């Protein structure tokens, strides 16, 4: 059972430092404990060391793409960790590919930071499948 005092941990994986800073600042202000990484492999390492409560994942990242990482996470994890994809790709096919890989939500850049917080809260409030 989760400790109600504990701040939910969010892992942000994006190779753009502006996005990292923006998302980290907004989520920290909203009461989350945020860790940022700049590529897919680093994100995988953090995920393996201490799985977060939610992952905000960019699709286009060096070393390991967001979709590949997502597939790897879904294959490896016994507990389903919610993943929100935050991507510059806005075509229907890209969104479909994101959900097909196992994403719980998909947001397109440029994004509204306020909407991001609402979506993160919404995902975390859902019962685990």
């Amino acid at each position, binding site marked *: 059972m989760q400790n109600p005092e504990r701040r939910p941990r969010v892992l942000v994986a994006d190779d753009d430092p502006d996005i990292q800073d*923006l998302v980290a600042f*907004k989520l920290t*202000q909203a009461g989350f404990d945020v860790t940022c990484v700049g590529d897919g492999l680093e994100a995988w390492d953090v995920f393996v060391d201490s799985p977060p409560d939610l992952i905000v994942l960019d699709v286009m990242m060096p070393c390991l793409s967001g979709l590949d990482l997502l597939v790897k996470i879904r294959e490896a994890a016994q507990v389903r960790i919610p993943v929100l994809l935050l991507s510059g790709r806005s075509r229907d096919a890209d969104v479909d590919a994101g959900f097909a890989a196992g994403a719980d939500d998909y947001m397109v*850049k440029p994004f509204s*930071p306020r909407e991001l917080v609402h979506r993160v809260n919404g995902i975390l409030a859902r019962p685990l499948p």
Partner: protein
Amino acid sequence: MTFELTLAGLITLAAVITGVACLAMAVAVVGVKVQRSLSERATERRLAPLRPLVIRVASGEDTEDGEALRGLGAATGRSRRDLHDLVVQVLGKVRGEPAEQLVELLRDQGALSDAARRAHSPLVARRVRGLHLIGCCRDVDGLDVAIHALDDRSRRVRSQAVHTVGQVGDPRAARPLLHALRRDGVHLGDAAEALVGMGYGISDALLWALEEGHPRARTVAAHLCGIGGVRSAAPVLVTLLESHDDPIVAAAAATALGKIGRPQDVGALAAATLHFFPFQVRHAAIEALGDLGVEAAVPVLTRHLSDPRSRIAEAAATSLITIGPRGRRAVVEHELVPAAGTALALARLKGVLV
């Protein structure tokens, strides 16, 4: 004193000159790299106190009395120019109220009026940069400047102007944009994307382009009329299809008619499948008959199952399957025809047919 020119002397001289030239180039390259690195570090130093404030505003977490915005407003000189670059960079990543606040900051600091001035600079790079800023800020006040730039002598500037009018999203730019397509240098896909960004107010401009525009403008207009289901454009599209002066335009018109979906256009599309029409028009018309979904097209499409051009035959089979039960029956009846057999196998794989 006299010099005796020997072969060995010449080789030595050439080697010395080459060595000195290489050394000079190496020094120049290192010099440029050092200068760039120093300049980047200086920019980082100047931005260090400003960046957290930009992030605070961009994430919508500024205080009620706008403390961070005030801090940014206080930047002067070189710091202010660097700040504007950073803000433009961040504007491409956020939307909503925080983005509007950042745009207002740029406006208050005169960056937008500077951008409009820069868009008239004799230097191409400056004109592009000015237009880029107007686009990032979706600055309606800069629309006239961007429209003017659609006819710029530089291809790069024209291309940037297309993106800019699309980002501003004002339908007043639709007709000038379509008119600008008479010149090359503007990618048709970019133009179509920019027009989509202008919303529903562009149908008059699309009709104008279909009737009077350059073939490139007609192609884009036909494509968008199809996507947007602009039924009032159908009569003009039929004329463009029937005249087939330009096969690319005629093919785009056929595709658009299929998407618009008026059953009465089946005759014009069926006629465009005949062998004396250019291949791409026939192909587009056959696909459009499938999109139209009218059973009256079944006999025409069935005839094309045995077309000597395999792509025409395959398109006919696919369209017949799309039309519905009567079309599918026709394909099954011709299963021994290669195109029909392939289409049936594909449809079964996709689960369209059991």
